[in-house]
């Protein structure tokens, strides 16, 4: 049986890598992908703790997170597509309409 802390540390590493990818990358699609990585790291922590608490509730929460991530992906990609159609760019620094 693999100990709980291995999985928790892996989850922390993945979350931090996702955060780094969000700041380093410059196109909207890849930044969106790094958000998905962070969501998955949270899923991993939930399932690990569900196993250690011996309950299925954590898995239900992960189920809901995956559902919400699917909805979020649909809306987010629609918005990215709309931005590309209007501005012909997907670089995040080109979208500065509200910059003072």
């Amino acid at each position, binding site marked *: 049986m693999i100990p709980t802390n291995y999985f928790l540390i892996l989850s922390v590493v993945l979350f931090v890598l996702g955060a780094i990818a969000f700041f380093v990358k410059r196109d909207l*699609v890849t930044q969106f992908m790094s958000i998905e990585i962070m969501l998955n790291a949270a899923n991993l922590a939930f399932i690990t703790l569900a196993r250690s608490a011996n309950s299925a509730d954590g898995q239900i929460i992960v189920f809901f997170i995956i559902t919400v991530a699917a909805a979020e992906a649909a809306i987010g990609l629609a918005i990215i597509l709309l931005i590309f159609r209007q501005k012909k760019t997907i670089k995040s620094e080109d979208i500065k309409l509200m910059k003072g």
Partner: protein
Amino acid sequence: MGYFLFFLLAALTVGAVLGMIISKNQAYNAIFLILAFACMGGLFALLEAPFIAVVQIIIYAGAIMVLFIFVVMMINVRSGIPAEKKKWTIYLSLVIAVVLIIELILSIKGAFTLPVSTAIIKAGPTDLGRLLFTKYLYHFEITSILIIAALVGAIVLVKKKEKE
């Protein structure tokens, strides 16, 4: 055997995410991410969550990433977008990463010593389904409304205005 699988899958996941950070091509990024999500499905299976593992592979590595690849194809940026030229954002991201690591380790430190219960978890598809339709029924219904709202919203957003 379990340890070997864990380290193999963990290394593959972290390697795929690192590859996503390094690679400049959006399509390769999506492929790397599919690899990462598939490996994470394997990790879920190691954690005795077979249903979530299958859902992860079908919905995440299948449906959501196909959506991403679809959008990458529609946008079709010929030359990849180079990484940030301004150095300070990379330094800033490293600082944020260090702070985040310290904060997260501190917050989950209490969970490190949790014992792994040896009892069999009742978390097969049948048990999850029963839980979903009894204890979490309201959440389930609210999620369905959310899905419909997202579906309608995406269609309304992307639909082209008809010329009058």
